[in-house]
């Protein structure tokens, strides 16, 4: 009787406050339940007993089956309940029966099956162990009858554990169905961390088998497929200590960014932490020492900083700790300080040794670092020149030319919005077809905005300050001039339409270029302008921090009210506005020439630490792999010069 009371209390505790146990009751929480089951099965594999994990995904249920030992059904002497029932109803009870000593178990939350059970409207378990086959059914964490022996089992193997669970929709109120892509991605990723363990994933729409022989090097190779790696073979660093296993596999690439994927006990630590930072510092230490030893006269300036050292590196880190500690709600950042010195020293020593025996490879890395240092020095100079622009009411053309000249090389892949067809159509929709109209695309960039009006006007002319952009837009527009928007090189009353997009925020005293646009428009002429604006008065300051760190040339974070005032204050009339929200991939957007490594880091931090006040008004997503996607509110205005 007293045992029943305890069981109810624990189940109810989980059901009353589920976020405390699984992080959240969003769809992330639902998937955590599944991952918990998968990690339990992986633990069986670590013990050397399971070789296959079968995951079956239904609309609102999942089944996870392994061919491990099968959860014990023996009676627990003290509690007089089958061990299986304890595992399913008592918090943190699983490890008592796993008998894993000095092994690195997987999984993050360690809440065990009892949590999954408590948060499922229905759960069916079937086990095969040396005592035979057994089954039991649960509802909202409470057993519906006793553990029952089975004569015929549905298990695919003679031993193992099979659990089918239905997340409780009373708790997961937004849950409608499992995210198939997310589960397949998870299974594939985790298969690389557990070589020689077969993951069979089935659903009505897709079936896959994932099995890796080469481990994380295989995962690295998959990432390297999209780029050019500098070395034919990946470099591997391995550390085996009493409380730590650490492996890092990496290669240098032709990219101007790095990619570091890290795992602790099979869980993706997308915010990094001590294992990642110790690795990065170890790399830095090794490279600085090697430069000092082999190329002291060829290196100028400071030692490499941490981002320089790992620039262009693609890295997979797989760490296993006996007692990992994590920080923050997402639990994706490792905080075990005791591993830092060992990892840093070992990484440095092993890489130094590697390059001493592969000196040709080190030469390649050294040349890459030299070129990176030059680029960074140039970028810094550009940033410094932006400061010179302070205090003047026009712009320093050279600053813009230098930056956008550089960016023109990868302009269309530097953000999602630039070539978003729907967004371009939304601009063009403001203008009624006029076969006689002459149009001007101001600060035309690659000319995509002007080109979206092309079928509606007689002629579309581009204007841009940057010679590289002028060359780029000539392929789309009828003619393109090089010039400054503060002093548009056309007479007054020249155009029926002027269009521009996401430009005015880059200009100090934007009312001046607006006045210029007004001047060159014919009476009755139309100005169509698209601009990203905050969703409300609340998120403007927050967005400004992000945008200013991304692009030091930003001079305005317009609020809707101010932007309208500016247009009407410039003499325009007949204002119309349409809105369109576009998701932007922030990782792509900030991987840009003008955004320093430090600013990229700080931008991510701003998203990660955004307050609830911001989240209420401004949608953005942090994906399970750490990618940040932000929803941008595009406002497209149309105004006219009075007749």
């Amino acid at each position, binding site marked *: 009787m007293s045992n029943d009371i305890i069981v109810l209390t624990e189940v109810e505790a989980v059901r009353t406050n589920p976020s405390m146990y699984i992080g959240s009751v969003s769809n992330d929480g639902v998937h955590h339940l599944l991952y918990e089951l998968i990690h339990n099965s992986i633990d069986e594999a670590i013990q050397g007993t399971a070789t296959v994990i079968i995951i079956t995904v239904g609309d609102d249920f999942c089944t996870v089956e392994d061919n491990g030992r099968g959860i014990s059904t023996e009676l627990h002497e003290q509690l007089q309940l089958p061990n299986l029932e304890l595992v399913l109803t008592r918090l943190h009870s699983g490890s008592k029966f796993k008998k894993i000593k000095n092994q690195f178990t997987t999984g993050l939350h360690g809440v065990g099956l009892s949590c999954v059970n408590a948060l499922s409207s229905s759960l069916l378990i079937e086990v095969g162990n040396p005592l035979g086959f057994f089954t039991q059914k649960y509802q909202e964490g409470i057993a519906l009858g006793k553990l029952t022996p089975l004569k015929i089992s549905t298990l695919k193997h003679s031993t193992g554990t099979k659990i089918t669970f239905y997340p409780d929709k009373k708790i997961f109120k937004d849950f409608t169905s499992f995210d198939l892509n997310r589960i397949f991605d998870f299974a594939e990723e985790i298969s690389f961390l557990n070589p020689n363990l077969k993951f069979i994933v089935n659903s009505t729409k897709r079936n896959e088998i994932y099995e890796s022989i080469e481990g994380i090097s295989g995962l690295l190779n998959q990432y390297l497929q999209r780029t050019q790696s500098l070395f034919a073979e990946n470099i591997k660093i391995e550390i085996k200590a009493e409380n730590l296993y650490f492996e890092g596999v990496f290669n240098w690439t032709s990219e101007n960014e790095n990619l570091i994927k890290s795992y602790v006990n099979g869980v993706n630590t997308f915010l990094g932490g001590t294992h990642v930072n*110790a690795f990065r510092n170890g790399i830095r230490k090794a490279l600085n020492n090697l430069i000092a030893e082999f190329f002291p006269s060829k290196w100028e300036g400071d030692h490499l900083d941490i*981002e320089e050292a790992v620039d262009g590196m693609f890295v997979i880190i797989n760490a296993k700790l006996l007692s990992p500690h994590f920080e923050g709600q997402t639990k994706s950042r490792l*905080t075990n300080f005791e591993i830092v010195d060992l990892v840093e020293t070992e990484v440095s020593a092993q890489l130094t040794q590697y390059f001493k025996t592969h000196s040709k490879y080190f030469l390649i890395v050294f040349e890459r670092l030299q070129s990176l240092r030059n680029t960074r020095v140039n970028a810094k100079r550009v940033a410094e020149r932006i400061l010179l622009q302070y205090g*003047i009411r026009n712009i320093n053309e050279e600053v813009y030319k230098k930056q956008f000249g550089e960016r023109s090389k990868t302009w269309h892949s530097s953000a999602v919005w630039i070539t978003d067809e729907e967004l371009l159509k939304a601009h063009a929709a403001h203008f009624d077809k006029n076969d006689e109209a002459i149009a001007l695309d101001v600060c035309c960039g690659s000319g995509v905005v002007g080109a979206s009006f092309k079928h509606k006007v007689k002629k579309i002319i581009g204007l841009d300050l940057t010679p590289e952009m002028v060359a780029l837009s000539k392929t789309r527009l009828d003619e393109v001039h090089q010039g400054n928007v503060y002093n548009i090189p056309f007479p007054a009353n020249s155009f029926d339409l002027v269009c521009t997009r996401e430009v005015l925020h880059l200009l*100090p005293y934007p009312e001046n270029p607006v006045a210029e646009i007004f001047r060159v428009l014919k009476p009755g002429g139309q100005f169509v302008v698209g601009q990203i604006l905050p969703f409300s008065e609340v998120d403007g*300051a927050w967005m400004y921090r992000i945008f*200013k760190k991304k692009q030091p040339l930003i001079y*305005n974070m317009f609020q809707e009210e101010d932007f309208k005032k500016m247009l009407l204050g410039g003499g325009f009339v007949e204002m119309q506005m349409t809105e369109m929200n576009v998701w932007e991939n922030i990782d792509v957007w900030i991987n840009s020439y003008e955004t320093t490594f430090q600013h990229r880091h700080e931008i991510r931090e701003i998203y990660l630490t955004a307050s609830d006040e911001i989240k209420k008004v401004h949608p953005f997503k942090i994906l399970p792999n750490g990618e940040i996607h932000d929803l941008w509110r595009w406002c497209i205005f149309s105004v006219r010069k009075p007749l």
Partner: protein
Amino acid sequence: MDKSFESSQTFENLRKAFEEEATLFFRYKYFQVIADYEGLDKIRKILKDFSDGSIDNVHGSLDFLRNFKDPASNVPIGNTQQNIKSILQTEIEQSSMNFPQMAKVARDEGFSDVASWFDTLEKLKRSHVATLNELKEDK
């Protein structure tokens, strides 16, 4: 403590301690991000511990001041309704006077981007005023 406490140097020092520690809290917070970027976990943790601790340091000074004067509003810290009125006063001043004036000065002095920053703060403060007004019982 008698009335002369409010006019004492000690009172002024408490106010100063409050302001300095409050500023220090945010400096620690800011520096943590930089330490994080540099991969210096141990230092970052110390900065975090210190910033967490400085909350008590700030509030400790406020504990002495609360029955006399809130250092910002010069009225005693009271119950929530009184506090809403007090903080509303600050938000109104910021949104209707301080930030617009700061934006104007920045524009006049040629710092267009700083002016825009003050503009965004003005709007944020305005939204706070609207919310706080809703929370007031005697609207």
